[in-house]
């Protein structure tokens, strides 16, 4: 019996025997599956991140324009000039403002999707949110530039309503104003909220979907009025979704340079600064040090979000 079983095994084709060889060694299966993607992520991605950190400790010789490959802190000293600190502050403020605004706008939408929409409507709404999330980011920014331009739709629309005065008044405001909506912080803010809104809607919706209907009914049964149920049951349960969404909105705003370039004025944001250091100044160490800052900010943000359970909502 044993002999025939073995004999049959030896006669099988080589591929079959190779399959069996691998199958009977679970660690080998795991190594073959995990090896390539792990190698890619570790070597290419994490390796790059490491090189970024290393690079930030190099410095640029101001006379020759060559990168000196010695570890110093001088690049970080360059980083902490008042002008640069202002850039960090400006970017972080914008990111925070955008995240909050996106959360406020996204919540009702997500709530409607999760609670009231029929199956069909939900699928349609889902797609409506999904599309802008995946596609044509640059085109969307570009479209807003046209919309907000001096001669664009907003001006025309307000003109038609005889409200030009309001727009002018808003644009005359310090800090957020500017020569036109397409060259102002206000315009930037609107566009940021617009392009990142889907990233906020989906996690909130996912979190709300996970709140079982029976839980809300239970709260109602126990005598809570709808407002209380919302505040004490729905909101805390949706919070991980909001946090997960804010990871995206915050992070994306921190690192973006397209919107500031298209709609900003001469006050730089982190993304622009990094781009200009690599592009024109060729000061890669300084650019690297510049990005270490949002990396650290995001690192803390991610750890905090993880503590609060945002990862389940991703």
């Amino acid at each position, binding site marked *: 019996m044993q002999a025939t079983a073995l004999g049959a095994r030896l006669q099988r084709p080589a*591929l079959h025997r190779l399959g069996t060889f691998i199958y009977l060694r679970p660690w080998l299966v795991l190594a073959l599956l*995990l090896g390539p993607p792990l190698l890619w992520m570790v070597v290419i991605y994490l390796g790059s991140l490491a090189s970024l950190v290393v690079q930030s400790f190099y410095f640029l010789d101001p006379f020759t324009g060559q990168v000196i490959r010695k570890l110093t802190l001088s690049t970080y000293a360059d980083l902490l000039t008042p002008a640069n600190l202002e850039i960090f502050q400006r970017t972080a403020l914008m990111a925070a403002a955008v995240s909050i605004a996106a959360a406020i706008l996204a919540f009702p939408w997500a709530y409607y999707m999760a609670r009231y929409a029929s199956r069909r409507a939900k699928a349609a709404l889902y797609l409506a949110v999904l599309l802008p999330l995946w*596609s044509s980011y640059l085109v969307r920014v570009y*479209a807003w530039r*046209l919309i907000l331009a001096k001669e664009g739709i907003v001006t025309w629309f307000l003109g038609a309503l005889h409200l030009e005065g309001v727009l002018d008044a808003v644009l005359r405001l310090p800090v957020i104003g500017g020569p036109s909506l397409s060259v102002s912080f206000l315009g930037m803010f609107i566009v940021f909220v617009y392009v990142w809104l889907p990233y906020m809607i989906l996690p909130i919706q996912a979190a709300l979907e996970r709140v079982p209907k029976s839980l809300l009914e239970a709260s109602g049964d126990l005598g809570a009025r709808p407002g209380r149920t919302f505040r004490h049951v729905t909101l805390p349960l949706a919070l991980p979704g909001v946090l997960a969404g804010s990871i995206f909105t915050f992070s994306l705003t921190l690192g*973006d340079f397209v919107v500031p370039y298209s709609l900003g004025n001469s006050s730089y944001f982190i993304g622009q600064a990094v781009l200009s250091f690599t592009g024109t100044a060729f000061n890669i160490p300084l650019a690297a040090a510049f990005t270490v800052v949002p990396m650290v900010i995001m690192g803390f943000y991610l750890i905090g979000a993880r503590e609060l359970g945002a990862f389940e909502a991703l």
Partner: protein
Amino acid sequence: MLFLHAPIAVIFLYAFTTDDAIFSFPPPGLTVDWFRVTLNRADVWQALGLSLRVALVATLVAILLGTLAAAAVYRGKFFGREAISFALVLPIALPGIVSGIALRSAIGIINVPFSFWTIVIGHATFCMVVVFNNVLARFRRTGRSQIEASMDLGGNPFQTFRYVVLPAIATALLAGGMLAFALSFDEIVVTTFTAGQQQTLPIWMFSQLTKPRQRPVTNVVAVFVVALTTIPILLANRLTERTVE
């Protein structure tokens, strides 16, 4: 809803305007002339070609690696299983500029020249997670017993993959692949740092934002980009929807 989708309609409208410099609204007149002009622009064709090739290769790499990673995570508990999902999501969770400058600095340190492949590597890295998520979700829904049933009936690991696993995840692969394609075709932030002097279509568009040569051509290209990214996403959505039912 309007807020999310109206801007795209504006681009469509402007692609037909007769205005060629300042884009006043409403447009003074409509024409299809700009489509003809765009078709004759060699730089547009070149950028489009590069974008398509990059997206295609990056998608293939992402499909291969993302699927392997999904299979590994699905298959068993091992040390650091959570870390894999975390590492894969990093490239899209971290600011794009971080990934971009990181790759740029690695390219600088090991001194490789910018090329088609530097762009592809960057794109494949952030596309992987899309395929990974899609395929992992499918694996979880399919369950283990179909694989066991195939082996039980005599299918060796390769036959089981060919006749059972592949058909089960085919639509997930396709859906993930299309999302990855759209993501890659549209990407600008990371590409800016890994492309050197080459221009993908988004980079070409970005350069037109700051130094426009013929603005209406940009509009036409924008319409084209919208189409090329929207269609695969719609298809991917259909694919995943149908298999859920």
